[in-house]
């Protein structure tokens, strides 16, 4: 399968991630007996055992906190989008 310029295949019962432009090996790991899937930044395969791989930045123990107002910097170039009044 293909996602974000990477081809994922089950190669010799191992998952491989190849650069779609020239086939360079970017990563390999796990076990598989069919094509892996990619969803939500994670790779899943199944050969009777399901393997789940993800990025360190997306690991379950990584908590993405909502920003505080002090962190927000307005973009002064934006054009106004008006909300129409409610017709009651």
């Amino acid at each position, binding site marked *: *399968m*293909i996602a*974000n*310029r*990477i*081809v994922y*295949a*089950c*190669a*010799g019962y*191992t998952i*491989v991630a*190849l*650069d*779609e432009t*020239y086939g*360079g*090996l*970017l*990563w*390999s*790991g*796990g076990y598989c*007996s069919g*094509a*892996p*899937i990619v*969803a*939500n*930044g*994670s790779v*899943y*395969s*199944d*050969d*009777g055992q*399901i393997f*789940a*791989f*993800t*990025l*360190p930045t*997306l690991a*379950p123990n990584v908590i*993405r906190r*909502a*920003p505080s107002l002090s962190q*927000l*910097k*307005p*973009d002064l170039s*934006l*054009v*106004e*989008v*008006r*909300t*129409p009044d*409610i017709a*009651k």
Partner: protein
Amino acid sequence: MRQWIQHAPAALFLLAAAPALAAAPTITNFSPTLGPIGSTVVITGAAFTGATSVTFGGVGSHYTVNSATKITASLPATATGPIAVTTAGGTAASTAKFNVTPGAQASPVSMHPQGNVTVTASGMDAYTAIDVYFDLTDEVLAVSNGSGIASVTFRLPANAAPGAHSITFDERSTHKAAQTPITVDTDWLQAGFAYNSAGFNVFEGALDRTTVSTLDVIWAKTNGGAGNHTPLVEQNGIIFSGDVYGVVRAYAATTGTLVWTANPGGWLAQRTPVIYGGNIYFLNATNIFAYKVNCGTNGATCKPFWTQTLANYPNGGGGLSLSNGVLYATSSNGEIYPVNPTTGALGTPFYADSNAYGGITSPVAFSADGSFAYAADGDTILAAYSGGGFSSYQNTYGVSGVAFGGHLGFFESGDGVLHELNGREWAATLANGSYCYSTPAVGYGTVFAGDCNAVYAYTAETERFFGRTTGWGPYPVS
């Protein structure tokens, strides 16, 4: 006198037939008395049965009539104002006003990168400029209306990482603010994704050439203990699989915890399931089973909300696919069954090629223009339908399923040839006679095909432009 005699029974009849006047509703209380958009408000009073409208500040809401004395309503985007309940008996308005505090909502609450989301805040100041942020990025400058409501639609960034994010409304002058969560997802709804079997997750943005090398295993879970299984699918953070013993398992995608299971029986393995409309559909050797994606928690055992028996059993390798809101199930005699995903009702089955008597061995792939194609067993036929009618291709070495890229369909044959549905045979060959054919993947103007030895990439101009071997095969890519 005669007139009186004639009219009296009529008058009496009319009086007797007149419906009892419905009691007028009354509102005695509501709780809470203030809150942001989306708040659940319990309204108590009398004569609520059959309520036809519940409004907050004159704006209609979603509500449930729990009893004659209780209504539960969800606060709409509105301004501070009284609550009104309307029934056949009249309209009751609260004397006190519901006070709307700053709050925000997103619709939908989960979306893929590049998808449009409508976000609404209420309880803001009237006619004021409000910056709307996706996490830390100022996406839109909204201006609220006279009711202090701001509502805008914008496209999520292409590189939005999967998982939880925040939408923040921040008044530019006063910094009165409201915030709501939103989830970014790149679900995988069917083997092949997006029902065209192209094997292309067009929304994935987190994994890229620079990050993929950092992939690390987060969980591994024995899945029924047998190598055969259905292709994996994913939605709402749940991974689904069916095994050879007829057991369905739903795992939490981030932890591998068993969310729910089901035991429809039969051989689910190698038959493609489909997720559609919040439901997941599995096919075994005789039946289709429909489950809610979120039908259980904590390892609960789910029951299907419908089951449908097919007259001709589905072959292994076949399965379910979807086009224009209709499920399609493959069968052993080459027929394709349309299935209503809501009720399970079968439509009239049809052939694309009546010679596919050995049974259909791939899910039916659909292109956006209404073409479809599939592989079949027997003498190994690939049958296809396009605007020009049915056609078929026969190869004794076997054929893979079809992947569509745009209006073009591609498949492999066991004698090592990559085919285009229009009849073109691509000059570059896969491993000849390998039998290691699998459905290609199509994306970025390139067709990726695997055989026993490698993954190959093809374009229309260059045909094969790379072959990558990393071990011994097979090399399924889709």
